[in-house]
């Protein structure tokens, strides 16, 4: 955690209390809220006969933020979608390798895939709040969809999730309004709040800020920094400053005419200051990509 490039520390007391709240909402007795992290072992991904991603092995330690960077088409998004079994929604898709959540392969036979996705949440590139639901209903949609019984007060959970996503102050007076009326940045933070309500162990974010203005982007980066105390975060980004700001570790992906591969991974400050691979250096210094 020493390598973290901190954005803001001034509101850490609030963060600590939120971490306490999250720890109190452990779903399974005897399981640590963070688990032991996520590990990808030799992950390959195909679309039809086209190999899109080759042999990626990458550990995401619990409670860290890992940024995946690299030019378009290098397999970052494909990789992130193999991590919570979204890859298989593409009809011709195939994969190889293992993805271990708390030491258990999520691709093992007999795995309840809906439980996997409950524990490994996802925020998409384009904000996708449910159009027929209000802001409040959107945040709590996960409980309904995953049929989770929530023992505590739902209003408290609603406030907590929206606060953690940095949206509470902007929407607290119109929780009954439809989500379509929010701005793009607000919608994206609403989607983050929505994914927090089911208390995932891992949160995957696929270019969450690509369509947002700098202000919204900063707020989401703030949110990420705070969330990493209670969950493991993997974020795909094209914005290298963002990767430097929010992540503990950075992995560089590249498809050099062939399938996408992970070129290098390391602590973020090392990746940006003294990368081992020449291609990484070229990319992070802006010489290509």
């Amino acid at each position: 955690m020493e390598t973290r490039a901190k954005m803001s520390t001034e509101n850490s007391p609030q963060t600590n209390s939120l971490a306490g709240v999250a720890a109190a909402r452990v779903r399974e007795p005897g399981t640590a809220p963070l688990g032991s992290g996520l590990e990808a072992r030799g992950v390959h991904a195909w679309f039809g006969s086209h190999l899109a991603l080759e042999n990626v092995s990458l550990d995401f330690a619990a409670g860290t933020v890992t940024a995946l960077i690299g030019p378009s088409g290098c397999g970052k998004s494909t990789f992130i979608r193999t991590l919570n079994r979204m890859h298989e929604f593409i009809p011709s898709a195939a994969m190889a390798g293992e993805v271990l959540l708390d030491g258990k392969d999520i691709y093992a036979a007999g795995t309840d895939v809906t439980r996997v996705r409950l524990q490994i949440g996802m925020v998409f590139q384009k904000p996708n709040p449910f159009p027929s639901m209000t802001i409040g209903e959107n945040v709590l949609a996960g409980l309904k969809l995953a049929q989770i019984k929530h023992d505590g007060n739902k209003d408290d959970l609603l406030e907590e999730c929206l606060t953690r996503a940095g949206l509470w102050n902007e929407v607290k007076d119109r929780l009954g309004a439809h989500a379509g009326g929010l701005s793009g940045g607000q919608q994206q933070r609403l989607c983050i709040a929505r994914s927090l309500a089911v208390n995932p162990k891992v949160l995957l974010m696929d270019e969450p800020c690509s369509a947002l203005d700098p202000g919204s982007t900063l707020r989401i980066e703030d949110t990420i920094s705070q969330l990493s105390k209670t969950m493991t975060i993997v974020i795909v980004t094209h914005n290298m400053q963002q990767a430097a700001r929010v992540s503990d570790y950075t992995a560089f992906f590249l498809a050099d005419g062939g399938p996408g591969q992970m070129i290098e991974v390391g602590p973020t400050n090392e990746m940006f200051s003294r990368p081992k691979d020449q291609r990484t250096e070229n990319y992070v210094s802006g010489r290509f990509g």
Partner: protein
Amino acid sequence: MTTTTVAPRKPWKATKADLYPVFGALALAAALDYAVVAVTPMKGKLAYVLLFFIFGAGFQMALKWRALGRRAAVDSLAASVAIAGAVIAFTPVISLLLTTIVKGAKGIYPGFFYHDMSVANYQSPLNQGGVVQAIVGTLYLIILATAISLPLSILTALYLTEIRGKASGFIQFLVQAMSGIPSVVAGIFIYSALLLTTSLRGSTIMAALALAILMIPTVTRTAQEVLLLVPQDLREAGLALGATQWKTVATIVVPAARNGLITAVILGVARIAGETAPLLFTLGVSNKINWNPFSGGQSALPYYVWSGLGDGTELGIDRAWSGILVLLMLVLTLFVVARVFGTRKVKIK
């Protein structure tokens, strides 16, 4: 670069080991089904089907419950109900097709496709006469009705989706009202408006006009839906390049909706191909091929079927079944042709 030796897997697909219990449970359900029908007062095909569904769905639920819990069991029940719905919906369709093929095949012989009915009547042996005049008539009707209604329908749809003029609401209402017109009314309309008061007589074009009245609302509604599916971004991209609205619509919107528009035409043709009632007042009669669509009576496959059934004799009804079979084959062929030639092949590397 390393070469991959890892084989692609699809861990999300059910393996053989997963499927054995599923088929085992279905076999058990079938056995139990048979036993229950044998020992209880419940009898008949319906009892078999109903019990098989209940037992099958129940066993699948139990399997899922044991493996993954209650949520998966409910999911499995929903899947079973959806499958049952599909089976119930398709059973009559399959039955209808099989019946038509079995009964229709009796009267089919090569000459059926190139003889007309001037050499035979409905009571003649089945190896005399044919439906070539009706095939020609039906093709004429489909082509003419499509030629009349397609431009009108697409233009109406474009008015409703692109121009969105002041009359949009009213026209939308008219299109909806029009789609509820009983087909016989379309025939009577053409009869009373064009045939009764003028010296015009029933001919292919008159019947095609009646069919076009039926086709327009179907094609318009479908075309409207597919045009609405074209993203607004594309229109804006075209307009932002300095294009006029006409150019944007003609070169961007309509080509983007091309496959959907073909579906609209197919649905329209399906709507009219089997219509008999509008033909009764407008088509005139012919038992020979009439190549002139603008004068003289014409024949058509639905009309042939209707006459055969009306004839009432065993041979007449056999001919009617054969006519239905030919009509089905003809329509199916047209749809396949429309799909093959209408779908632009986009090569994706």
